[in-house]
């Protein structure tokens, strides 16, 4: 049963990566990248149960925290062209 979930997540990963390669705008790529992060977490969980080593969930938690920070950082960079942008500075 875990192998079915693993295969499903791998299929979804293939589709998400092809959207990241095809995506016409940068936002499509960011969205696909975020989905790839989510699917990586689910893949880690499923494979951890598949191989009988659910300790990989720690890595999955770390990926989950990195995923949102990475996505927001990329969005901010493409909006302001600068990660250190501050509105009060006006820089």
């Amino acid at each position, binding site marked *: 049963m875990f192998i079915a979930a693993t295969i499903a997540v791998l299929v979804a990963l293939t589709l998400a990566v092809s959207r990241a390669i095809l995506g016409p705008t940068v936002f499509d790529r960011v969205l696909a990248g975020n989905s790839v992060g989510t699917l990586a977490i689910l893949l880690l*969980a499923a494979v951890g149960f598949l191989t009988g080593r*659910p300790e990989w969930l720690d890595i999955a938690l770390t990926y989950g925290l990195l995923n949102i920070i990475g*996505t927001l950082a990329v969005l901010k960079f*493409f*909006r302001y062209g600068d990660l250190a942008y501050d509105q009060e500075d006006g820089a």
Partner: protein
Amino acid sequence: MELIVNILSWIFILAGSFFIVIGALGLMRMPDIYTRMHAASVIDTTGAGFLVLGLILQAGLSLIALKLLFILAIFFFTGPVVSHALAQAALAAGVEPELAEDRRGQTTATPAKDGKSKEIP
């Protein structure tokens, strides 16, 4: 009892796998960024929710179940934040939704029952 929990968790895991594939198909097939976000949110909520619930049932009462719950909580708190930021960034950059019709300031004559036309705000 063991069998019932097992069958329930298999159902959850299969449902989660199904919704994950559906969401990824939508991510590939939808026409513009906003509809693609709609499809991708299926992966974040229904797919991940069902899959993690099934894994929790497999894990039983343990630290592993707690970690899985934390993963679910991360999804449920970060998903809306990322969706909001992404849609706002796309709108600010001038990406137009392909499927929407802009009804702002437009008085479409929708015949009401008393014969008067009703304005759509």
